[in-house]
């Protein structure tokens, strides 16, 4: 589904130029659950952001189902993003002024889903995430785990083909972390492609494949036996 070739990304600041991505080659198949690991600063988040069309690389190619995404203009990128991708962040990034329900509803509004359908879709996902009795609360009134579940719900409500998660458990304790990981696995089993950045090999163990980055390079790939055999 995804084919990335020779991706390069350089950050220029006044004092220093940082090559965050230095010729990345990568493929992700439909229905796969890929983890990206590596030391801090090796470019994981950058890669994920580029994949999510949130950031533009200097050069390279990024094909999504044979569409070259790097050639799209702003509006096309934005449209493609809202139609195909969902995001989960380490720091949740919920909007403080909106309730749980409204936060989840937001991407549907931007996707121009009619109000009635919207309500049904949000209710369905809230049920699935087990946060029904929280739907009227504001993000500050929830625990970290609950907040992340809302964030996951928000990422899933549009039924995206690809979910990008940047250290989704990074701010959570292990039991809350596991809850989220189980959610992602469940999702993956239903056919959603997932790319997740993580520092935890425990979390990475949930995925089909682990990609190791260092200094903006892919240095190794490891296939998780057992789970992935039938895919390959």
């Amino acid at each position, binding site marked *: 589904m995804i084919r990335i070739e020779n991706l390069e990304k350089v950050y220029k600041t006044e004092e220093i130029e940082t090559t965050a991505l230095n010729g990345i080659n990568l493929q992700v198949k439909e229905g796969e659950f890929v983890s990206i690991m590596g030391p801090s600063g090796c470019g994981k*988040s950058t890669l994920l*952001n580029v994949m*999510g069309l*949130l*950031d*533009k690389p200097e050069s390279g190619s990024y094909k999504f189902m044979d569409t070259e995404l790097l050639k799209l203009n*702003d*509006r096309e990128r*934005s*449209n493609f*993003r*809202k139609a195909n991708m969902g*995001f989960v*962040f380490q*720091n949740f*990034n*919920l*909007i*403080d*002024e909106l309730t749980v329900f409204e936060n989840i509803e*937001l*991407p549907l509004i*931007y*996707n121009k889903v009619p109000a009635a359908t919207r309500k049904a879709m949000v209710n369905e996902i809230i049920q699935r995430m087990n946060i029904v009795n929280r739907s009227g609360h504001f993000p*500050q009134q929830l625990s970290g785990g609950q907040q992340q579940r809302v964030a996951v719900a*928000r990422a899933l409500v549009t039924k995206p083909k690809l979910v990008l998660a940047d250290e989704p458990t990074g701010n959570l304790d292990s039991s809350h972390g596991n809850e989220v990981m189980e959610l992602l696995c469940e999702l993956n089993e239903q056919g959603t492609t997932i790319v997740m950045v993580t520092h935890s090999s425990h979390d990475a163990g949930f995925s089909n494949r682990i990609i190791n980055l260092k200094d903006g390079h892919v240095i190794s790939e490891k296939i998780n036996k057992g789970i992935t055999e039938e895919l390959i």
Partner: protein
Amino acid sequence: MFKLNLKIALRTLWKNKSYTLINAGGLAIGLASCMILLLYVAHEWGYDKQFSGYEKTYVVYNNSKNNAETLSWAWTPTLMAGEVREKIAGVKYASHSTYPNPHLISYKQNNFKAPAVFADQAFLKILDYEILSGNAEQALTGVNTVILTETLAEKLFGQEDPINKVVKFNNEEVLKVSAVIADVPVNSSIQFEYLLPWALFEKINPWVKNSGWGNNSCLTLLQLQDEGQLSAVSAQMRDIYKRNIPDATNEVVLQPLAKWHLYDHFENGKSVGGRIDQLKIFFLLAFCILLIACVNFMNLSTARSEKRAREVGVRKAVGSSRAALMNQFLQESFLLAFIGMLTAFMLMEIALPFFNSLLNTSLKINYTDWRFWVALVGLTLATGFIAGIYPAFYLSSFEPVKVLKGFGHSGAATLSIRKALVVFQFVFAACLIVCTAVIYQQLQYIKDKPIGFNKNGLIEIPMEGNLRSKEKMALLKTQLLESGAVTGVTYFSRSLNEGGNNTFSVSWPGKNPNDQVLFNFRSAGASFSKTIGAEMIAGEEFSEAHHNDSTHMILNEAAVARMGLKHPVGATFSWGGSPVTVIGVIKDFVVESPYQAPAPMILYHIEDEFEYMIARMNPEGNVSSSVNKIDEIVKAINPNYPVERKFADDNFEQKFQNEQLLGTIANLFGGFAIFISSLGLLGLALFMAEQRKKEISIRKVLGASTMNILTLLNKDFIKLVAIANVIAFPLAYIISSNWLSAYEYRIQISLLPFGIAVLLSLIIAVLTVSLQSFKVAKANPIDALKYE
């Protein structure tokens, strides 16, 4: 401590350059606008107050009563001053003088037509003009003497010493220059360039000596011994007419010299305001604009408060008192006001010349005047205080514990105050837009209103010098017509745009004897209505055949209506006791105020009274070449006089000066007020966009387009501006209908001004907000989300 505070203040201002720029810029424009308006107000307020005895000086007003109304004017009999001097106690000086009128004055080859006043010696005692050279003491007691103002003396004599030199007056009289005085202050009601003795006036106009109490032909000024005498003197003055003419209805009121200019509107014999009303509006406007600039500061400071909360928390935690904190924040706002004032200074010096040419004024900053500096310092301090007090109060109220833990949702209260302030600003802006639009509509309406004749392409030439003779008048007429520059010529006893020359002594069959009706009277030439493009409704107009005819009259419609004539042509009435016959009726045409229905008018045909030639320019010809031809011909026939040819429509324009001034000022300063308000809005949007950066980024990640984001950010502001408009409309309606009510001819207030206000304020708000939010809406969403 002060030094430390100053350092922090400077650093804060420096660190937040865009806020500082918006704040100081807004304050500077506000202060500059305020001060320019105040300069104008001071200029008007200072009218006639340059004379040392102005507080005890009064202008004699003559109230002439009739059934319908009381008319008040400062025209009095020449005999009055003498009688007052003789018979009324408590009066120190009483003077009579003419009103300024342009006359020719020449020295060798230099000749100028300049306004002159004939006056007696008391005039100079009451109005103590600064004497630069010569002896003014006895100057006005003689016959053939003259007092020049500095500028005129320079124009006539150049570097020569004018004293005791001889000049010629109207090419007839030889006068000796006895003194030179400083130029009459620009804000003085009596504007002349030279003074002539009253005796000369009597010599040139023999009728003056014999004119009695029925002839109101001059200005009478009184100076009391002290102000306490006013009521006694007024009481004695009131019936001075009745004491001299048994059946007179006129009464006298004394108008203080200091109020002559500003309180020039009389109703029922009492002064009820006038220019002062407009001046009050400007005064108010000055402070409103400054207030708006202060509001900007309040708004931005409280909006930024969350950023500064930490500083406050830490300071309180280490032991600062609330007073010390307030002190610090106030110092910051004083500093900003000071910076604003410095900028305002530069703005003012740059803007004043433009302002002066736009408004036809000659305002300047008088740096040697202590009042200027007091106003300046006062305004700066007041601005700093008003702008700073609320933010200081608010910022210093933060509880350290809450603040250091983070803000949460406590911003709501300040948000609503900020919203209220923005609404306040835009109420003001919308009001100004509506009022300006109404003023312009009214002005346009009056300008477009038919005036009964075609003033375009009509020129007036005064019949002076050689042109006083009938032969030369006729010669001019033939030459002008032959040259092809003009197509028609007639004469009039006054300028087409001049008031005056009116009488009560007209009666007709069936007139109520108590009914006093004022009729304008003019001597008109042959083909008068044809030349000026007016319309004869009935009968005929004067032709060459009516030679010096004092028995046949043309009436205007208003006169016919007033006399109630069913068949005007051939009807007779009496004027000054002699019977006269109506030969024609002319459609009303405007010679006085275009804001009122024309007064009744009688036209007659006496060549000796023609003062102006009125000529219709050839519409086929090129204007400037025609004008050159006309000027050449006039100059050739009347070489001793500068050519005074004027366009009737130029003169007519002057009737709109007041309204034009109001319109221009409302427009100009309204524009500034709106600009300052949008600066404030810009600052607020800047802040909001920054505060909501994270939210905006999340929304973008979730698929919001740039348009979505712009709408989101604009929505709140649009709501505020809409509310402001709703509040402003009734206010603006009341103000503008109040203003309009002073005009007899006025527009109906339509929806248009309100539509303009809504549209304009919304466009301004949306543009301002979008200008700022666009950047945020366009930004890469991940930048704001990455590092929390």
